[in-house]
């Protein structure tokens, strides 16, 4: 009896936390989304969201988030695989994670310097004879910097999945005559798919609402839903519209979690 009581007592802080910092804020966002700029109850924000402007923005956010995730994955999987083969795995892993400790803004400013007209990237292009190109404020620079920032978050879960892989399975596969490609396709990849999925979630969802980089690196040539939320809250003070976009982002994120989530029921 007493054990039960203390157990529910221990649960209180956790429940309070969930209530105050997860459930209440989401409900507040939902609540605000039903008010127009003058504070009257209306559905106008939802109507507005389905106009070409916001739909286009949603699609382009998706497109960039997809690009960023796909490229991160293409780079991260082989990297993680090679990492598991090195002798000092933990050290190499640390070296990859260290840049993520540096403030995002600082990295963005560094890239402005590197990609600028007179920056290191352009001097290199000149040296090899291609000549100066505009790199900063292009789609390329935006995707490049975003991928650079997200890569550690993609590598970690994949690395963990690969590291836990039982090597005897690979031996068994080669004993049974599987080629390297078949081994990868039928054994390694299916067994690490959970790592890939969580890596994709961790990258795709924040990439969908990136906002600082769209100004600093893309010079507002790329407008994502995140940029628009920031503008509605801080500049226009149209909290209703900002909240409506946030509601759609939350819905999209939940859908993505459901699609990519691991179904471990019954285990």
């Amino acid at each position: 009896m007493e054990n039960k009581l203390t157990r529910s007592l221990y649960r209180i802080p956790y429940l309070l936390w969930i209530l105050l910092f997860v459930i209440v804020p989401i409900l507040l966002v939902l609540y605000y989304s039903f008010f127009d700029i003058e504070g009257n109850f209306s559905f106008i924000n939802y109507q507005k969201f389905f106009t070409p402007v916001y739909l286009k923005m949603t699609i382009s956010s998706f497109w960039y988030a997809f690009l960023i995730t796909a490229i991160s994955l293409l780079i991260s999987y082989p990297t993680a695989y090679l990492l598991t083969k090195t002798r000092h795995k933990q050290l190499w892993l640390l070296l990859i994670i260290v840049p993520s400790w540096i403030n995002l803004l600082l990295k963005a400013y560094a890239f402005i310097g590197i990609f600028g007209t007179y920056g290191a990237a352009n001097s290199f292009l000149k040296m090899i004879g291609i000549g100066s190109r505009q790199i900063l404020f292009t789609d390329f620079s935006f995707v490049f910097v975003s991928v650079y920032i997200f890569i550690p978050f993609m590598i970690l879960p994949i690395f963990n999945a690969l590291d836990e892989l039982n090597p005897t399975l690979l031996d068994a596969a080669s004993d049974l005559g599987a080629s390297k490609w078949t081994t990868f396709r039928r054994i390694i990849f299916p067994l690490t798919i959970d790592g890939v999925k969580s890596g994709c979630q961790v990258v795709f969802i924040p990439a969908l609402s990136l906002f600082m980089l769209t100004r600093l690196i893309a010079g507002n040539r790329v407008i994502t839903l995140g940029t628009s939320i920031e503008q509605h809250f801080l500049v226009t003070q149209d909290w209703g519209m900002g909240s409506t976009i946030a509601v759609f982002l939350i819905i999209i994120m939940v859908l993505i979690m459901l699609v990519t989530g691991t179904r471990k029921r019954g285990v």
Partner: protein
Amino acid sequence: MNKLVRFFLVIAVVSAVLLYAISSLNSSQGYTGSNTLTVFNWGDYIDPDIIKRFEKETGIKVIYETFDSNESMMTKIEQGGTNYDIAIPSEYMIDKMRHEHLLIPLDHSKLPNLKYIDNRFMDLPFDPQNKYSIPYFWGTVGIVYNPKMLHGKKITSWNDLWASNLKNKILLTDGAREVIGMGLNSLGYSLNDTNKQHLIEAKEKLDTLTPNIKAIVGDEIKMLLANREASVGLVWSGDASEIMSQNEDLDYVVPKEGSNLWFDNMVIPKTAKNIEAAHKFINFMLDPKVAAKNTEYVGYSTPNKGALKYMPKEVVNDERFYPSPELTEKLEVYKNLGKKNLAYYNELFLQFKMHRK
């Protein structure tokens, strides 16, 4: 269990020690509750030496915090939970804050230095009789450009920006009213126009400028222009003077069709805890010598008539920053257009940003 308890004990002890260290550090520097003044200002908008001098002369400790847009400043004050004693918003925002009762009336008897302010800048429509605000700086919106990079070509009008040889050479400041205003000005409309037809026309005209625009950025614009990343920029006059002090090749022009004239003003928001010290600070900033020194640092135009004689002649006579009365006539002050119109401006600005080359 024992391990867990010890773990939490260590965390508690470390937190207590850190807390004690912070509070003793603060009090050793004089930051106690009743003796501080929190100033909420634009980034890089005051000479740090002046704050030090104010602290030395009055014994009041200044906590300096910055914002990067009028709107975000107002949001913070509106939300409460802050204790800003001084804020420095622009004129249309003062109008708005005044109507929403976010400001505390000033006691003019505590501001003897008010007499140094030029009469031109007193008693303006956004705050009759300066009940709530005292002018801090004023300036214009215009074009900064690099004649060397443009092969000696001169820019005098907004419409010059549409020239085909400026492809991918223009940087814009990330402000809805400034950019839409540029479109309105180039068509000869008022900067406070709320006619939807005119606004859409302006936005469509701006869309045709897209091939010439390299990026729309924030404060980085100063660094980018000074480093010759682009040859033309839409900026506030003070940013222009700062850019020009870093790179002498650049020139600033207020386009002949007219432009925006703005004022930043010192106010005491309702979040103030130390109103006495806030008055002292405003009065200190109005002192002609202090104002002159501050102007030299910041680079915007001072409304303080007394300060002009302490400043270099070539600055005071520079018509780019202290425009002649004829040009001043064509400059317009932003009016508070109300939330709805402002939202429409921002909506158009967003659409303009999304317009691809």
